């Protein structure tokens, strides 16, 4: 169980983490999502005691990181993959970590086998590919067989096979009852990996909910319509109560994005007016779009300097549902 309460970290003028509170529970993969610079890595560093927060607490099983008697047996962490001395072998890197925890040498061999690096373990890590370095990092995280794992962008730079390997590993470890907390800026990767999402933007909590709920709640059902008589059709749909926008994502400019009306009804309207349809596609926003919509809201708040409701008072409680649907309308011209 990882608990973050009212955590704040400032680097100079920049507020990297802003009164952040959330809880990461065991037995599932919790995705930690946010655009670059949202404060994901900083939050992880604060949880791991590498950086000192200005205020607030981060605890693992109720203890601050530096109070953990054997930290690597309580939580494993993967930060930057290449954070190893290039002249030291993977075996010796893992060996000194094992020795610091009073773990036997046998454990080093076990984790090397786990990540499939047994054969190259005595080579210097400077010659390793990014994927191999990433595996050393995962081996280090698994060294103490910890009940919790913190992984910062673990699939960054991996090839598809490596990505699938990390994904399966995380799911399996979660199924064993461990707490898995994994950050990413790749929304679609999180959609297939994470059971639960914690989304932050500008250091603030945006959402803390199951992945499915996040997608459903934040996504807008819409229908993409293409027609050579788009203007005429748009007017008719508006008259019938639909909301029409120019579809900005389309390749062809003639597309309309219709909300508040189902595809069959649009087809009937078109048929009644004798309008030719080239395309009529119901769409459900992807996690990517849901995420963009939410973080666009947080960016807007940051840009105009208007604090969101509740920001100056108590921080949003863990589990708060606050991806205000109003954001989407606010940014629509």
């Amino acid at each position, binding site marked *: 169980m990882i608990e973050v309460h009212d955590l704040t970290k400032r680097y100079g003028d920049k507020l990297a983490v802003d009164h952040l509170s959330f809880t990461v529970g065991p037995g599932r993969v919790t995705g930690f999502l946010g655009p670059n610079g949202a404060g994901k890595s900083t939050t992880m*560093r604060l949880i*791991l*005691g*590498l*950086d*000192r927060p200005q205020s607030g607490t981060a605890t693992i099983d109720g203890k601050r*990181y*530096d109070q*953990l*008697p*054997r*930290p*690597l*047996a*309580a939580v494993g*962490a993967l*930060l*930057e993959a*290449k*954070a*190893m*001395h*290039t*002249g*030291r*072998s993977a075996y*010796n*890197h893992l*060996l*000194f*970590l094992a*020795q*610091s*925890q*009073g773990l036997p040498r046998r454990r080093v061999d*076990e*984790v090397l*086998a*786990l990540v*499939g690096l047994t054969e190259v373990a005595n080579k210097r890590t400077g010659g390793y590919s990014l994927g191999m370095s990433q595996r050393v990092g995962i081996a*280090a995280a*698994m060294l*103490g*067989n*910890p*009940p919790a794992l913190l992984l910062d962008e673990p699939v960054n730079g991996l090839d598809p*096979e490596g990505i*699938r*390997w990390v994904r*399966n*590993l995380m799911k*399996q*470890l979660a199924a*064993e*009852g*461990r707490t898995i907390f994994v950050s990413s800026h790749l929304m679609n990767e999180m959609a297939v990996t994470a059971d639960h999402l914690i989304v932050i933007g500008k250091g603030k909590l945006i959402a803390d909910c199951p992945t499915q709920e996040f997608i459903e709640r934040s996504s807008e059902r819409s229908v993409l319509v293409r027609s050579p008589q788009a203007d005429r059709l748009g007017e008719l749909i508006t008259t019938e109560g639909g909301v029409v926008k120019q579809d900005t994502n389309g390749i062809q400019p003639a597309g309309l994005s219709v909300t508040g009306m189902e595809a069959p009804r649009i087809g009937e309207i078109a048929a009644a007016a004798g309008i030719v349809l080239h395309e009529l596609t119901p769409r459900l926003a992807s996690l990517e779009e849901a995420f963009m919509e939410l973080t666009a809201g947080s960016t807007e708040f940051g840009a105009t300097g208007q604090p969101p409701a509740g920001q100056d008072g108590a921080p949003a409680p863990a589990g708060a549902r606050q991806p205000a649907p109003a954001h989407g309308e606010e940014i629509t011209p």
Partner: protein
Amino acid sequence: MTAVAPAAPAPAAGQAARRPGFGNLLLTEWTKIRSVRSTLWTLIIFAVVSLGLTALLTWLTIRALNNGRSGARASGIGADPVNFILGTGLGLGQLAICVLGALVITAEYSSGTIRASLLAMPRRIPMLIAKGVVFSVLVFVVGEAVTFGSFFIGAAIVHSHFPVSLSQPGVTRAVIGSALYLTVLGLFALAIGSLIRHTAGAITTVIGLVLVIFPLTGLLPYSWGAHIHAYMPTVAGQLITADKQTAGQLLTPWQGFGVFCAWTALLLIVGGYLLKRRDA
């Protein structure tokens, strides 16, 4: 590697109960220091430069003396042959110890290993102490071997003109003291490294201080200038490496060594404080 099988089944309860002792930290730092090539290479350079230059310069001076060159007398080999022997090769070899001292801490920062270290050992002060202890023991052991080696090589070369032996007053203290000086010098460099956290910056600073800044204080005028010079870290520390005291020397060898230790301890305390305070 699509199928994954964790080697250990489920995290055992109570596994994290016992905190590893200081012995584990010493073992950890020993593994770290022995598993990078820079340690071995720096120590090899230290030994080769120290022993080689001691032999070469002592031999050249004795040869000049045999040929009746007057400059050889001015080199002080006749007045204090032990100090000549211990001052030549080790004077340059000590720079390798400065480099190693700075590297053992700055290489952790430049490579990012410091984060792995601090994740494993979040109590930063014990980690720094363990690193200092392991490094000191290593430098002291290698330093003793090289200083005794230098002495015996030099003594054999000067033997026909100036017989020297460990039984003469102050000689054994000077030889053992040379390794003590090197050990504290290494810790001094380690402390600077923990403050600067950048390899090139730390090495430049240490060597600049040891070779330029501290000796230059000898040019300060009046009695206060002499006092400042005498209390400079390596100036005071080097007193223990000489078998004879010079006239007007403000500190005894052990007092000088104490001054050097005090400076180093002060820097290590500041380094430890910053290590604890700063973001890694």
